[in-house]
């Protein structure tokens, strides 16, 4: 009973209650957001590269971009499904949609986005590898519609923005967790997409032109910088709501989330920033790949921390 005597006289103490729920949205939701950032990020960064450079500077971009996006989006969709307590009822989102919910709007947009990326992947792959499925009727049909790739691409780029950002609106609708504020989270989601989008391309850009690789370094450097600054602003100065203050005070006081948050900041933001910055003058491909891998790890840890800490707060 020693520590009871240290409680302030004005403080109230819970002496009998039920256990609290703890972490409800855990690593699967973190993985979901992380994978979605990759899936949309490669499209956004890819679109920028295609706008700025010649296709010959990035010979495999046409099929690698939808391939990476397709894999990441399927990881995202798989873990979205696995996290549901009733995964087979996912169809209810399509048959009984409730349009005020960002979950519904997001699910529809993400499904459409994945469908279009799949179409781009099929065209891109069959164009890049003419020997594949040469005798298959469906392959012939798709090859006959090569121009569709360029027609669909602008819609995919347009959709990539809301698809990458809608999770921020879900978090904003989760009004019990005040740490997740919409404007800040929307920007963070967009920056996360540019971070891992550029990091994905850095890993495969070995044979791309130097000017493209330089652009990727710029994108990585700027996106980690702005994202880091936003995290710092939120971490140190977002004390307007008492629940946010309590949440962050919990992290500031040390413990596993403190370690996780700063590990994320150092690994995913500070180190990649300096590597990308130095690479602008003297390119070091190995170091840039190292920075890209660190960005992936750091972003996952940062998202995990930010997702879980408000859930540690007692709501009642």
């Amino acid at each position, binding site marked *: 009973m020693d*520590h*009871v*005597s240290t*409680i302030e*006289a004005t*403080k*109230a*103490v*819970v*002496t*009998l*209650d*039920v*256990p*609290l*729920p*703890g*972490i*409800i*949205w855990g690593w*699967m939701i973190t993985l979901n957001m992380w994978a979605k950032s990759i899936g949309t990020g490669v499209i956004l960064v890819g679109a920028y590269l295609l706008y700025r450079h010649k296709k010959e500077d990035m010979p495999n971009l046409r099929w690698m971009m939808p391939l990476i996006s397709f894999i990441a989006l399927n990881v995202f969709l798989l873990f979205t*499904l*696995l*996290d*549901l*307590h*009733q*995964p087979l*009822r*996912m169809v*209810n*989102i399509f048959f*009984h*949609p*409730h349009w*005020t*919910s*960002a*979950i*519904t709007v997001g*699910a529809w947009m993400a499904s459409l986005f994945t469908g279009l990326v799949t179409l781009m992947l099929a065209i891109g792959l069959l164009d890049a590898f003419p020997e594949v499925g040469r005798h298959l009727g469906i392959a012939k049909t798709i090859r006959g519609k090569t121009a569709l790739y360029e027609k669909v691409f602008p819609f995919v780029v347009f959709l990539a923005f809301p698809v990458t950002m809608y999770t921020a609106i*879900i978090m904003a*609708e*989760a*009004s*019990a*967790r005040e740490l997740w504020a919409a404007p800040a989270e929307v920007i963070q989601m967009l920056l996360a997409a540019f971070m891992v989008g550029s990091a994905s391309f850095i890993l495969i850009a070995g044979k791309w032109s130097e000017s493209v690789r330089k652009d990727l370094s710029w994108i990585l450097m700027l996106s980690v910088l702005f994202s880091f600054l936003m995290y710092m602003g939120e971490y140190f100065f977002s004390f307007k709501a*008492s*629940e946010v203050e*309590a949440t962050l*005070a*919990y992290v500031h*006081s040390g413990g596993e989330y403190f370690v996780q948050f700063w590990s994320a900041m150092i690994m995913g933001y500070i180190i990649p920033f300096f590597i990308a910055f130095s690479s602008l003058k003297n390119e070091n491909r190995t170091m840039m790949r190292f920075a890209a891998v660190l960005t992936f790890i750091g972003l996952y840890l940062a998202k995990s921390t930010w997702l879980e800490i408000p*859930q*540690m*707060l*007692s*709501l*009642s």
Partner: protein
Amino acid sequence: MLLYIYYLVLSLNIIIVIKKLGGNMKLGFLVDLNLCMGCKACEIACKVENEVPLSSWRLRVKYIDIGTFPDTSRSFTPLRCNHCESAPCERICPVSALHYLDNGIVNIDSSRCIGCAGCMMACPYGAIYMDPESNTADKCTYCAHRIEGGLMPACVVACPVEANIFGDIEDETSQISHYIMEHQGDVQVRKPEKHTDPKHFYVGGGNQTLNPLAHERIEGYGLFNNITHLKEIGDTHHSMLDRFLNPIFGGHNDHLKNESFVDMPNDASHEEGGH
């Protein structure tokens, strides 16, 4: 022609009157904390009436001790769904499993719920739980099934001191409306800053009893020693992944063994502390 217009106006008036009588009913709840003695009869009645599984609660009574010995007091706060007029859980539910009834109750259709837990993240009052048996979200519905049959909610019936007052807050002659009028200035809701417009009121409450940030939770001082957080919500092996992996790596078939819960290791304790 005039006769037609007369009938039209008459029928419109009848519709308005019917809507006023039926559609505008807004059911609300009020707990007089001055009367509550923490007997937990409401909690048990709710559990029994709604067959709420172990480790889940639609209604719970929290004990809070204030002050230092010998100047101490203990308060009891029953906590349940607030049936907000602007309910964040209803807004975030992707399949309308959470929906409003005409009488203001925020109801839940478990057969439609996909178990995304969005409502649990949205509810500022922590009033929604994941049912470990049905793997769907669930919560207090003010015993909507009883109200439909003309009965009072189970917790109201069970309360020995009539601390729970339930009725139509739109009806000026109802007991709850009288109570609210009589105790003006002392009627509070939880977290008004959330703008959810709760229809659950407290009389005799204060910041220390209604604001969760105003009281501490100390591990080891509760009915369930050293438990402040449940390790998992609902069925710990709910996912499809588990369903595939469990037959290979061994799953949660312990309950099939012939041993009581007492003999099983209690792995519900979790070292992560609250604050």
